[in-house]
């Protein structure tokens, strides 16, 4: 079963734009969009200060665990998580049941503002990803052109 999510440059730019706008409007430090599988899709803001790969896998793990909890309780999902720290806070939400939107903010913003802005931009992101999921299954994948030799070459070093 080879299900693939194929994202073209144009869609990636759209996601980046939404991340950038959300980061600005919410006065956030960083915004991440992560696949539910833990793969980082896009980010905006002060991304250099964080290990984004680790963050993405941990957030995805957390969302998976919370999803398990929701099922136990008979809920479809818990769509929002919030962690409050001393300086930094993390707002995590599920968009269109398929990607995770992470907003990290400090005292320059507030939970109310973040929630408000996230709600608005989530709809936009949701539309992009619904369209992308629909299109992914009809798209030619770059892997179709890969030969057995290409795969072997990857391991020849």
């Amino acid at each position, binding site marked *: 079963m080879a299900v693939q999510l194929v994202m073209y440059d144009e869609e990636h730019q759209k996601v980046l734009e939404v991340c950038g706008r959300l980061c600005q409007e919410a006065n956030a430090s960083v915004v991440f969009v992560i696949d539910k599988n833990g793969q980082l899709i896009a980010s905006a803001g002060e991304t250099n200060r964080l290990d984004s790969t680790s963050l993405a*896998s941990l957030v995805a793990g957390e969302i998976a665990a919370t999803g398990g909890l929701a099922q136990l309780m008979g809920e479809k999902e818990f769509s929002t998580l919030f962690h409050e720290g001393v300086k930094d806070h993390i707002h995590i939400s599920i968009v269109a049941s398929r990607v995770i939107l992470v907003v990290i903010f400090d005292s320059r913003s507030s939970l109310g503002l973040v929630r408000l802005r996230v709600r608005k931009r989530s709809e936009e992101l949701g539309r992009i990803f619904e369209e992308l999921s629909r299109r992914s299954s009809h798209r030619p*994948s770059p892997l179709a052109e890969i030969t057995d030799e*290409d795969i072997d070459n990857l391991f020849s*070093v």
Partner: protein
Amino acid sequence: MSFINYSNREINCKIVYYGPGLGGKTTNVEHIYENTPENIRGKMIKLATQTERTLYFDFLPLPLGEIRGFKARFYLYTVPGQVFYYASRKLILKDVDGIVFVADSQIDRMEANQASLDNMRADLREYGYDPDKIPLVMQYNKRDLPDAAPVEDLSRILNERGFPEFEAVATTGAGVLETLKAIARLVLRELQAGATR
């Protein structure tokens, strides 16, 4: 589920190390981490108990090089092997692209191997996979132990479907990279086949 990003020219795949508790899944991933050049390897995350037993998962992002101008990146996960962590084990298996089943070669762990394998196959079915067709590599670990069962027996009991199989001693690294290469190959071939179907 693989994720192909044309913008960054990246192909991302998820590989899960599955198997019974104390079988050597984390040791496999640790060996890979230690043998990946420092300048390219990602950070290894271990969510473990105080006694070093995996509580939720271990995670290692592994860049493998370029394939037709796309950076192939594998995300390696291990599951907690202990029976009572069933719920979290199942979560890690979701959207997997390939599996390494790390079996413990010791004769008295045969039942645990079998139970873990059955558990995995049931969960895969629930997620919509055909457990006979998913890219999977069998690894018979702990070959150095005196009470290790003969490979033929392990193969007959655990691998009647004939998945590629490797002997390993994860503590010394023997067989670890061979297993990884085999699963990475299978995953890419499956993606390639899926893309042309």
